[in-house]
């Protein structure tokens, strides 16, 4: 257990995706919402997806409902949904702005959300309204503790 914990933290630090179970991957350079979405901010653009913790708890994703390119998203509001095990789960935006690109690969390969939640499984790219939303989001350490606390309340 201690060795896998070290390996996961090292992987997190080095931004490597590790297919580990029992401890979900959390990447160092991302920000996180308490509804388990991540955002990678690069200047005025942001890429959004769902976390490894989220995809693990969802099960195999069979469908992703994507928003229209050009539509607006608002922090904390739903912009789409994923379906797994006969359950549709809303996906909320961690930031506000305009959708400039959606990951069309998810229409044919929704499972990318499970196999590569932080890379190939990205969901939307957003042109940020401003960066005032970002302080509300969690950093990787806080998000990791948040997940641990949530899982412990089972």
């Amino acid at each position, binding site marked *: 257990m201690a060795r896998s914990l070290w390996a996961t933290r090292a992987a997190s630090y080095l931004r490597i995706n590790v297919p580990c179970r029992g401890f979900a991957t959390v990447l160092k350079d991302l920000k996180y919402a308490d*509804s388990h979405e991540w955002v990678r901010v690069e200047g005025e653009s942001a890429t959004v997806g769902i976390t490894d913790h*989220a995809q*693990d*708890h*969802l*099960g*195999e994703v*069979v*469908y992703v*409902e994507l928003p229209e390119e050009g539509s607006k998203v608002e922090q904390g509001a*739903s912009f789409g*949904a994923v*379906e*797994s*095990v*006969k*359950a*549709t*789960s*809303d996906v*909320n935006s961690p930031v506000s702005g305009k959708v400039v690109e959606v990951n069309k690969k998810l229409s044919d390969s929704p499972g990318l959300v499970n196999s590569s939640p932080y890379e190939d499984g990205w969901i939307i790219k957003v042109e940020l309204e401003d960066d005032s939303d970002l302080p509300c989001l969690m950093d990787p350490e806080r998000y990791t503790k948040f997940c641990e606390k*949530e*899982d*412990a*309340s*089972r």
Partner: protein
Amino acid sequence: MRGPRSIEIWKMGAVNYLEALKLQEKLTSDRKTHKIKDTLLSLQHPPTFTLGKRRTVHNVLVSEAELKAMGAELHYTERGGDATFHGPRQVILYPIISLRDIGTGARKYVENLESTMIELASLYGVKARAGETGETGVWVGQRKIGAIGVRISSGITSHGLAFNIDPDLNYFKHIVPCGIPDKEVTSLQKEVGLGQKLPSEQVIHEQLVSCFTKIFGYTDVTWRDKTSVSSDGNE
């Protein structure tokens, strides 16, 4: 260390599908804003066909006009899952609960809904099992006895499960149930034997609810008779 879990059970009788949908929307919103605690609706519907978010209309084998002619409605919903039928003698449970409060994700939630129906079936000596990957639901052999279709919005659940006590199974011939062709639909009555008398529907509803509260670990359970409730939640 978690404290006692509370839930309020609404016993509702027969409810029109759209009325139940509007009520769930209101309760989901109230649960999100902490105006209410976890709530479970126990009811049945008049003959109703429904589709999920993916709108798999190809799995409805007759036209909407033909469905109307047989006295049924068709509704498009935001839940997961494929085409299904609801009707008299089928128990419906719609849990409006906060998954975040119990640290549970969609997969575990659905597994627990499956376990709820499996447990109920076992009370009658019927050995049911959860579906394999891609066949979520509850099966007796290759025959489907219980269906699941759920919506999760900001961690709050709506829609839920449907368990066949003794509905008119002919209705299922007009759809590809759950999008899985060549699989039969069954009922508790069929599985215990048509000659065997089951207790009243009310008893079976209550038993299913008890299986649910046990599996989900609710210790503080309040029952409310809501047979005269309208879609805005008022009596």
